[in-house]
């Protein structure tokens, strides 16, 4: 057969594409369960990390998660619990695109050493792409006990510093309500927060837009949980 004919070219292309597509589809489906377990375990590790349960290996994540997390609630915007939705399965990436009224807000209630913690998942925008994380509040639903952040494509050394310990550790002990119980959230302050500021943390030098993204994300996400916090 003439190798330069159109027919040969078409047949060759069709055959090779079919073989490769089949091969890739096969690997993708057979590896999918393993990959999903990894993603799920990482999510559990991140949630536990906010209440100080670190050093949990990926294999043990599920056991530890079930030990500490007592309740997983899907809240409506008015603070009511939607019992029909599985909170853990809510993907914030798609959820935040919906109207406030139609969104379900996942809340994890944890218990550690007899104390109750409220863990709120976060999702927002950094400079280049999405940023997300978890923030844990103490039983007073005001004091932050821990936070962690991750990002998709922030600049290494600048915006990507939100994943570092020094940045995340600053959130410990900060408060989201002022003295008269009004919601003020926590803000990353450019040039550094004043000492004693219970609502401010140091922003990242050179990562202003990412830092602002973190502030905005925390205040936007937490604001939806206030009705629930008030009633419970």
């Amino acid at each position, binding site marked *: 057969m003439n190798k330069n004919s159109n027919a*040969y070219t078409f047949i060759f292309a069709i055959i*090779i594409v079919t073989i490769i597509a089949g091969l890739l589809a096969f690997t993708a489906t057979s590896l999918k369960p393993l990959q999903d377990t990894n993603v799920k375990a990482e999510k559990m590790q991140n949630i536990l990390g906010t209440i100080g349960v670190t050093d949990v290996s990926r294999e043990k994540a599920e056991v530890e998660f079930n030990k500490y997390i007592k309740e997983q609630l899907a809240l409506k915007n008015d603070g009511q619990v939607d019992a029909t939705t599985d909170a853990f399965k809510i993907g914030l990436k798609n959820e935040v695109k919906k109207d406030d009224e139609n969104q379900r807000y996942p809340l994890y209630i944890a218990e550690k050493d007899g104390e109750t913690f409220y863990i709120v998942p976060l999702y927002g925008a950094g400079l280049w792409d999405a940023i997300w994380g978890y923030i844990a509040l103490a039983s007073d639903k005001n004091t932050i006990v821990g936070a962690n952040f991750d990002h998709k494509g922030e600049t290494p050394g600048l915006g990507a510093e939100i994943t570092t310990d020094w940045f995340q550790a600053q959130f410990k002990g900060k408060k989201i309500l002022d003295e008269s119980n009004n919601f003020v959230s926590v803000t990353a302050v450019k040039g550094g927060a004043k000492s004693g500021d219970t609502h401010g943390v140091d922003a990242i030098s050179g990562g202003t837009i990412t830092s602002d993204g973190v502030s905005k994300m925390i205040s936007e996400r937490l604001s939806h949980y206030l009705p629930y916090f008030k009633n419970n």
Partner: protein
Amino acid sequence: MAEGKEALFSKQNKALLSDPLNDNNPISVQVLGICSALAITVQLKPAVVMSLAVLFVVIASNVIVSLIRNLIPGRIRIIVQLLIVASLVILVDQVLKAYAYDVSKELSVFVGLIITNCIVMGRLEAFALANGPWKSFLDGVGNGAGYALILVLVAVFRELLGSGKLFGIEILGHKAKTLAESTGLYSLGYENNGFMLLSPMALITVGIIIWVQRSKNRKLIEQH
């Protein structure tokens, strides 16, 4: 063809392995694949994983293309090569996500960018299309190793000088908040060079490597 009679490791075949390590190194002589050399050499571990991934992709794509080289229609050969390289890269990406999740997170987008690594396509066009599978295999090993060599070298410099570690282990001592609590070099007031963590330093490190290599290996210097 004379290929069948040739010894597996004839002088010519050995050159396929050793040339890319020095005289014809894909990074320092041909200056290909620079993008990933800049991006993932901040630490040694991702650099090593990236090297292994590229090694696998170069070898596998070289062998596959070489096996079907007489069947590929000339007009769509680049597309066919791209197809093979892309599927191998997706394969690597999927396997990493399933079995080495942390590493795959660290390499993130750069695994996908192996597709655009000029070394891979370059070897297919320049070598695999015209040579048998065994030679192509050796050529793949040689070029993958040449790439890995430079990548690891750059990563050693950057991680050691930039964060005082290798593979995440503190080599130069521990840096605590105060001088008194620090150990090793840090107790003498040594500071890490934050510059080394930024991408431009990878380019400068590669430049220095090229300089040193050419001053040792005079035949690489262009004649004018």
